[in-house]
């Protein structure tokens, strides 16, 4: 077991395990008082949210296997990081997720069926509910960090009480945009939260080969901004760290870099085979059995009398139904019309797009298959 533990931690840092902020142990024990900081109802909401997302995620992997969706990026194992951070936000806060952060997006108000649409490659899969500020998943790595500087900067300029949060992975910290974003945010003291889910891998690349630095949070000091390292599978720690970052941002104290240590149980995407680059079975089992964010919170809630098997069953059933409903909605949603590809290239339309639309229209009329 000891040996195992070290191997796992190596996926996250060279030479052991630098300190990280933790409130709730894997056994469900509180090791730092959180009295009055997290409502009981919020605790239950945290749990339910994670349950919903895990159900959603597993369902999605299956849908991909059945050919009902395209390549999918699962987040199972990272629920505490995504839920904890998203629940710490206000409704009007700006969110910049990646392809793996639909969990966070859903908690922040994105609708389940939209997420299905996204992975079904529907043109409208990145639209968020009216009034929400959830941007499309960023595919080019680390680019969204700079956007979250810009939106937060505008909030500051306009005197609006909103923060912007950018999600990204450990791999993203190697891109130049990571650096430029943190530096800009430091200069303009933007209320930006740089929320890094360090799941130990950028596809096949363990973080220890991604950088010679032991942690990601230590990068904050390069810009003299706040940085913190938290147990990303401890939803209390995540929530508290993000709350603090939000408050700091709104008080005009600038950005925060949060490194949340976590692990994706599954493949990078459904197109990836993790067995090639890591001892998938062993390492994944270790995390599931010893670090699971959901089991951990469940232990705590049960001890506190806030949750029981009955509720679990009821919620599970309810979530399954909800997800199925959204799946139905997504599958029944009018398919993307080929001609829609000419819409929204610009606010207006120019002659060349009009003509090209016409050209495709004629071809579609002929009715010949592609």
């Amino acid at each position: 077991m000891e040996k195992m533990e070290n191997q796992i931690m190596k996926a996250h840092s060279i030479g052991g395990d630098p300190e990280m902020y933790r409130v709730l142990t894997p056994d469900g024990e509180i090791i730092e008082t959180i009295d009055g900081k997290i409502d009981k109802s919020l605790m239950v909401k945290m749990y339910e949210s994670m349950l919903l997302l895990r159900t959603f995620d597993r369902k999605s992997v299956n849908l991909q296997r059945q050919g009902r969706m395209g390549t999918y990026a699962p987040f199972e194992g990272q629920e505490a990081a995504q839920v904890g951070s998203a629940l710490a936000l206000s409704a009007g806060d700006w969110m910049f997720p990646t392809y793996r952060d639909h969990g966070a997006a859903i908690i922040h108000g994105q609708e389940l069926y939209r997420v299905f649409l996204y992975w079904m490659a529907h043109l409208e899969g990145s639209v968020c509910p009216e009034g929400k500020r959830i941007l499309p998943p960023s595919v080019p790595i680390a680019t969204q960090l700079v956007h979250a500087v810009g939106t937060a900067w505008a909030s500051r300029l306009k005197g609006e009480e909103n923060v912007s949060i950018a999600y990204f992975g450990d791999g993203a910290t190697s891109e130049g945009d990571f650096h430029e974003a943190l530096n800009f945010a430091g200069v303009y003291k933007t209320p930006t939260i740089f929320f890094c889910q360090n799941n130990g891998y950028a596809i096949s690349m363990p973080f220890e080969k991604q950088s010679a630095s032991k942690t990601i949070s230590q990068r904050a000091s390069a810009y003299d901004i706040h940085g913190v390292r938290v147990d990303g599978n401890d939803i209390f720690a995540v929530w508290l760290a993000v709350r603090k970052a939000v408050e700091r941002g709104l008080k005009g104290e600038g950005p925060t870099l949060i490194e949340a240590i976590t692990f994706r149980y599954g493949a990078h995407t459904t197109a990836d085979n993790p067995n090639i680059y890591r001892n998938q079975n062993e390492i994944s089992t270790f995390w599931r059995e010893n670090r699971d964010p959901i089991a951990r919170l469940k232990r705590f809630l049960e001890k506190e009398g806030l949750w029981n098997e009955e509720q679990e069953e009821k919620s599970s059933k309810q979530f399954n139904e909800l997800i199925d409903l959204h799946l139905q909605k997504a599958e029944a949603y009018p398919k993307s019309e080929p001609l829609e590809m000419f819409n929204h290239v610009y606010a207006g339309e120019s002659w060349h797009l009009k003509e090209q639309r016409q050209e495709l229209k004629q071809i579609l009329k002929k009715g010949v298959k592609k």
Partner: protein
Amino acid sequence: MMGKSLTMLQAITEAMDQKLDHDDRVMIMGEDIGVNGGVFRSTEGLHEKYGENRIVDTPLAESGIIGSAIGLSLNGMLPIVEIQFLAFIYPGFEQLISHAARMRYRTRGQFGVPLVIRTPYGAGIRGPELHSESVEAFFAHTPGLKVVAPSNPHDAKGLLISAIEDPDPVIFLEPTKLYRAFKEDVPEEMYRIPIGQAKVVQEGSDLTIFAWGTMLREALNAARKIEKEKGWKCEVVDLRTLYPLDRDAIVQSIKKTGRALIVHEAHKTAGLGAEIISIINDEALIYLKAPIKRVTGFDVPVPPFSIEDHYLPTVERVKQGIVETISF
């Protein structure tokens, strides 16, 4: 309103000044554009007038600049970004191509990026390496962007105001060589020149010269000389907007003259000249009396300034092209 005699640089400053004055959402950001007033002085006086929140000296990081401007524009601002020289846009290329140009599309109109990127372009100013590029073709190959390049103070002001008001990202290419080259009357009011419209600068019947930016002068001079020397009348069309091109203006002129020559200082291969030829091929091939000539920068890196004038299209080369085309 009365007009004032302004250089292109002054016309550009005036456009920004007026928009800043009329619309709180407008802001300018870039390297050395605040206290210093820009390396070409295009933002001179604005920092003092509008303060550091609206005229923002940024760190030296083009991806950071363009990327955060995208964020600012998502959240209600109308940022005008100055990139110090066109080649220095490359570090921000991904932000431009993969985000600015696609945000509206990806969100089905929910979020737009009303961003203007102003940057001096082109050779002929004895600039150091990489200060003289003309790579408009990159942007003209990118759906979601608009590309504009004025050739005179009047158009510069009107086009820049349109660009700032445009709901989509506009690359605004300022011909460095013309910044202070001449003055002309520029109306004081906030007028607009629509993006997407070319302008017939000189009517003619024997051949059409298509040009923009700095090269318009070469086109006009060549046209004048050739008229004197040979009596041929060239039509000169200033394209002004490079993406989307004003197809109708191109085709209309060709139907009239039957011959064309394109002048641009960008490299020939895969330059915008090729697209113009292709538009004519598509729409007016049968009107063509001769192959269309491209007089362009050569397919070599823009050389050091001691020989840059030989890299650039010259009046001589344009004239020779006209002769070859008309006597084909």
